[in-house]
């Protein structure tokens, strides 16, 4: 894949969650680091939609924030269009690259400044980067963006509180598009919306992608949504990628036991009466994840090796999987969920 818009190489991001120093000294514990993202590598080709799926605390939102520069990686590198972001030292030098990567957030209520008019919200990237000069020209561009997301130019004069959740998410998308990006990070863009509105937003995203040739990093915990939008899927568990595969392969032949577990929890709307494997346990505290493979306490196939040795992401049956059981060939074939 020559034309990767985004490439992450062994990216790690730690957060210091230590107790105050005096308490540490008295209880004899060292500093504690939360490994929110623990060595993640993937790349996204131009025009494709890469989806990250996982439960809360798995680090998928941290990956999103690393990509758009809200966090700095603790180690590893992030390349956008072949440029290592860390090699650009100043804000000014980074600005042209950063402009091309924009983000749509989860909460349509918190992601728009309640005290700004919609036209000013959408125009902010244009003004910040000086993309267009002259108020009339900017307004014309704002109107065009509003139409692009199926709102009307008259909506530009209102404040965010006049809009429903779905409409606000359209405004968010218009703002993201205003800086003429080629890459959008979508962090659970529909999980706060009702299903009928979710369908509208998902359709809008697909239309925009086709029309503008955008590349997406799509983050969600909803496998059905991911199935609908993505080309390629990465499954995360406790800061690590456990499986990466093309959509068709992942849903038809999931390899990692955690991927299978997730697929098993998707509610059965077709009401086939399918018996499912009982899911065990909950996601552990990411501050001290289990040793070896972090999934081993919940995994029906775990053995001694899984408890001590951490599996790495290797090719298996067309997918990339981090699982000893898969590599040793001791996993039964997938019975199929949907």
């Amino acid at each position: 894949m020559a034309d990767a818009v985004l490439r992450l190489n062994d990216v790690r991001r730690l957060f210091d969650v230590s107790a105050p120093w005096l308490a540490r000294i008295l209880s004899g514990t060292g500093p504690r680091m939360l490994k929110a993202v623990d060595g993640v590598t993937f790349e996204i080709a131009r025009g494709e939609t890469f989806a990250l799926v996982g439960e809360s605390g798995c680090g998928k939102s941290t990956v999103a924030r690393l990509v758009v520069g809200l966090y700095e990686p603790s180690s590893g590198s992030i390349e956008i269009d072949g440029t290592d972001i860390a090699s650009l030292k100043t804000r000014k030098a980074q600005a042209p690259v950063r402009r091309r990567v924009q983000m749509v957030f989860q909460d349509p209520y918190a992601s728009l400044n309640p005290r700004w008019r919609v036209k000013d919200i959408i125009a902010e990237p244009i003004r910040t980067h000086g993309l267009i000069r002259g108020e009339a020209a900017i307004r014309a561009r704002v109107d065009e963006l509003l139409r692009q997301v199926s709102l009307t130019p008259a909506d530009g004069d209102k404040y965010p509180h006049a809009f429903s959740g779905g409409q606000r998410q359209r405004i968010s998308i218009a703002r993201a598009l205003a800086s003429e990006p080629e890459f959008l990070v979508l962090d659970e863009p529909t999980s706060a919306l009702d299903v009928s509105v979710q369908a509208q937003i998902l359709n809008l995203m697909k239309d925009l992608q086709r029309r503008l040739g955008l590349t997406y990093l799509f983050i969600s915990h909803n496998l059905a949504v991911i199935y609908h939008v993505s080309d390629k899927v990465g499954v995360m568990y406790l800061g690590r990628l456990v499986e990466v595969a093309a959509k068709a392969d992942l849903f038809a032949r999931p390899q990692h036991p955690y991927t299978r577990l997730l697929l098993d929890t998707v509610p059965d709307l077709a009401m086939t009466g399918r018996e499912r494997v009982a899911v065990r346990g909950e996601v552990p505290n990411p501050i001290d994840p289990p040793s070896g493979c972090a999934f081993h306490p919940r995994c029906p196939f775990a053995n001694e090796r899984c408890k001590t040795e951490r599996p790495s992401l290797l090719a298996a049956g067309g997918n990339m999987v981090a699982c000893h059981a898969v590599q040793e060939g001791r996993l039964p074939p997938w019975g199929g969920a949907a």
Partner: protein
Amino acid sequence: MLAFILRRIFQAAVVLVAVASIAGLLFPYVGDPIGCLLGQDARPDQIRELRGALGLDRPFYVQFWHFLSNAVQGEFGLSLRQGAKVSRLIGERLPATLELSFVAAILALGAGIPMGVYAALRRGSFLSQLFMTLSLLGVSLPVFLIGILLILVFSVTLGWFPSFGRGQTVDLGWWTSGLLTRDGWHHIVLPALTLAIFQLTLILRLVRSEMLEVLRTDYIKFARARGLTNRAVHFGHALKNTLVPVITITGVQVGSIIAFAVITETVFQWPGMGLMFIQAVSYADIPVMSAYLVLVALFFVIISLVVDLLYYLVDPRLRMQRGGGGHGR
């Protein structure tokens, strides 16, 4: 637990040192007590002599070190105005202020907390609206004005209570108490009331708003959904959760009683430390001022330590999280 307490004690020590340093650093630069002591037309040699006697001619850092090392031993030198040892002056005045503050604090807490709880639970009832109106009046009246009004009504017009002084006291050797005589109680009523009213209204309003906040929470709603009696919901669940924030802020309020005692003591000519401080301020009596400041800081630090410990006893989340390797969530 231990770490928590140690950290608080450490912080308290930092506060004390900071206050002592500010007091010690500022006062050598402040004012000229000599002028106050000798008057405008003193001769230069008189001034020089007095400076030497008071140690004011030595370099600043020597004075500061002297001040700090003495302060640690509770010694603040001689009062520039009265020529007596500051520690002795304070020893004489401390009981008066503490007794006044204590009675006022009991009044404020004893009435303020129940009134606040009532106002929250019976929102909209006549009595709770009366409480709220009165409390707004209490917050709006400056302490000295409350004192003056009480004097006007109960001393001047009705003649029920005396308007100044401490009355008859009993000397216990290290402590002179006004609380052991009828006359003493007679004298403390108005000043204690004055001091308590402002604090009482603050506590009332605080307890009410915190309680209303708690009554809106999910666990109160869930407690109702479980069919618990109003009594259990209000006094079992809501009140204890209200205590957590109330303790913290009440601690600060009770502490500020000491400060407001300055005003009350001035209005009622109560022979306490506050009156002494005001007099010291107008004469730039540095040793007395610094001693008072350090002492007030000490009271505050003690009160906030007690508050932290109470907080700790009430809230299991604090008790567990520190100490061992308990998991947050």
